[in-house]
């Protein structure tokens, strides 16, 4: 089940674009998440390299939900909401699995070359703020925020 709901207002007038997508918690749908994100990021004004970093970070966050929150159960859902405001991009990921333990989430030392543990580093590299809200009745709401670069005239 994939739902795509768009609400679009006049961007030129400083309006907000919001897209919501719900995908099953199976790794094969990560491709759908990435494919949905790219045109929105380009439309939001991100250059290709930054867009790729953001997509990687969101993909890693979804992978973490599948692995840790749902412990590999492919029958659950992940809902992604992307809000494109004039000054920032916000991506929210909602799951209904085991709550994230933010005290245990930290990027690892990259000097220590070993398999795994890079996802948190990628999220921190792409976004200005990464917030885990576990005050939900069930699951976690992860918010990833990135400020847009201001062009001074």
């Amino acid at each position: 089940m994939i739902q795509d709901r768009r609400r679009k207002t006049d961007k030129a007038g400083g309006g907000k674009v919001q897209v919501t997508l719900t995908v099953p918690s199976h790794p094969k749908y990560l491709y759908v998440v990435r494919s949905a994100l790219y045109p929105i990021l380009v439309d939001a004004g991100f250059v290709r390299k930054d867009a790729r970093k953001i997509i990687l970070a969101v993909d890693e966050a979804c992978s973490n939900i599948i692995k840790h929150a749902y412990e590999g159960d492919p029958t659950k859902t992940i809902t992604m909401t992307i809000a494109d405001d004039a000054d920032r991009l916000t991506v929210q990921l909602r799951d209904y699995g085991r709550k994230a333990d933010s005290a245990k989430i930290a990027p690892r030392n990259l000097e220590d070359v070993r398999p795994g543990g890079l996802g948190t580093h990628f999220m921190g590299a792409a976004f200005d703020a990464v917030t885990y809200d576990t005050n939900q009745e069930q699951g976690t709401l992860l918010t990833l925020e990135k400020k847009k670069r201001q062009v001074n005239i």
Partner: protein
Amino acid sequence: MKVEITTQKLAAGSMLLIKGDVDMNSSPDVRNSLGEIFKQGGAKAILINLSGVRYMDSSGIATLVEAMQNCMKQGMKLRLVELSPPVRDVFELARLSSIFEIFASVSEAQAGL
């Protein structure tokens, strides 16, 4: 999205040619193909041609790090070939560009093996 993996025999070993996105869904397929090469043994080197890979996440990186560690244990060389710009960006972000042997072409990667 399905990943396509082809294994080619080379004079000094084997080359894995990967096409598609290497993510949490497809990296087990890459790991299995590498496992087959390790099982056969007798190779001096494994080349992994990434020219057809436009996306790689941390699970893909982890698979390559594992392969590098296995090669080191077995006295083999692991060489990565033709990284596309998106994959190169991921390697730089993970600060792994200097850890792997990376070559611009298959002929360059085969030199000196």
